[in-house]
């Protein structure tokens, strides 16, 4: 076995941070993506325009720049808000801007834009007759969404979703730059301290491949489940 020189437990902790960060950002991204897709398809001009500006801006700027903007600017912004609350309304609160929260927020925010595009395409692929049939059964629009539009949309969204997840997973490595101790940061620190970069960086690379392979398997199973009733297409 490779000698991790006592960095083993910290590397595993770092892997935990990576996975938590990735999963929480994914959840945020899915919620934002659904909202964006809904806004893009809505009849309201303002909502449509806002969603377009959001997806265009986010997809035009590097993840790292957005992350630094939110992370370095976040504390200043939060301080400004709490100062404003104190001077104007005499409310004294101190909000500590947490690095983990900043990471989840930025990654979720970035991938919300990509998810929005994925979901929009998937929603449009659902046959209109299905929705009309639901309405004819007297379903409310939220019930139509839950029972008809969402399950059928997922079938079309899953390939894109799985793609976005793989990119998201790799993007989490960037949080090591803004000071979060994920597995990349632990490995980089250990490499610098021990002068043995390969011992630490290659296992981390393998860990990413492993997570990617496991999620590929999960997505394949999900796809099978959502494909039920569509003749194994």
């Amino acid at each position: 076995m490779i000698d991790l020189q006592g960095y083993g437990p910290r590397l595993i902790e770092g892997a935990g941070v990576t996975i938590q960060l990735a999963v929480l950002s994914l959840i945020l991204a899915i919620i934002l993506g659904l909202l964006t897709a809904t806004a893009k398809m809505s009849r309201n001009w303002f909502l449509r325009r806002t969603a377009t500006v959001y997806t265009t801006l986010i997809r035009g700027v590097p993840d790292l720049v957005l992350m630094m903007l939110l992370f370095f600017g976040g504390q200043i912004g939060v301080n400004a808000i709490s100062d404003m609350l104190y001077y104007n309304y005499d409310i004294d609160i101190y909000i500590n801007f947490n690095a983990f929260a900043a990471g989840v927020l930025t990654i979720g925010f970035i991938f919300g834009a990509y998810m929005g595009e994925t979901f929009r395409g998937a929603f449009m692929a659902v046959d209109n007759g299905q929705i009309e049939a639901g309405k004819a059964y007297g379903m409310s629009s939220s019930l139509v969404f839950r029972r008809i539009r969402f399950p059928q949309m997922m079938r079309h969204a899953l390939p894109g979703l799985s793609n976005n997840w793989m990119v998201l997973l790799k993007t989490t490595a960037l949080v090591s730059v803004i000071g979060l101790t994920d597995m990349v940061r632990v490995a980089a620190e250990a490499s610098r301290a021990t002068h043995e970069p390969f011992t630490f960086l290659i296992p981390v690379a393998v860990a990413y491949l492993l997570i990617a392979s496991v999620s590929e398997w999960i997505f394949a199973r999900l796809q099978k489940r959502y494909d039920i009733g569509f003749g194994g297409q």
Partner: protein
Amino acid sequence: MLDISTWFNDLLAGNTIFTADTLGYYWEGLVTTTQLVFLSLVAGLIIAVPLAIMRSSKHKWISLPIYFYTYVFRGTPLLIQLYIIYYGVVFIDGIQDTFLWPVLREAFYPALIAFTLNTAAYTTEIFRGAIKATAQGEIEAARAYGMSPRLMMRRIILPSAFRRALPAYGNEVIFMLHASAIASVVTLMDLTGAARFVYARYYAPFEAFLFVAAIYLCLTFAILFFFRYLEKKLLAHLNP
């Protein structure tokens, strides 16, 4: 309305950040980013074409090693690849005595190597997809003309595959531009590096990063329009 205009005037009057000095940093950053992205894309493209042909080979022992390469480079973060090359290159035995050392010692070349290998992996898969999608009839026609496999690759398969790959390759170029921001992590003064420097010097995160975000946005749009123009020209025969 008046409020906004006075606010805007105050903003410009009290501007101590965007002096000629800092704008110079951003300009140098832009030059570094452009060099890094352009060189790695060109080198990646040159590597990717033969790899894509090998990857589409029927022989497993030719296509499998290439698949392994693309799988590893597409499945791991670019940051890890950069770290491995940047920190690792020092530890290759005897490298400090070779003529390569003065080149590899600077952060620019490890970054260039990492970016090239990364984009080559993605581009290989894009081209492989395009090669695989060649219409069977075209291949049969080429065979019927008595073309050798090499001639067929050169005259029939590759030209049409390049055209099919164009939209996906445009995305890869934009992806590479955004990924190049990582270079700032290994002390390179690219655009993001310049923004970090300005941020650290003036403690002005919004100004420093929003400005650089705007530059990246402009570059992204420029690439987007360039590829749209190319598609219009090269894929004109596909339009009704």
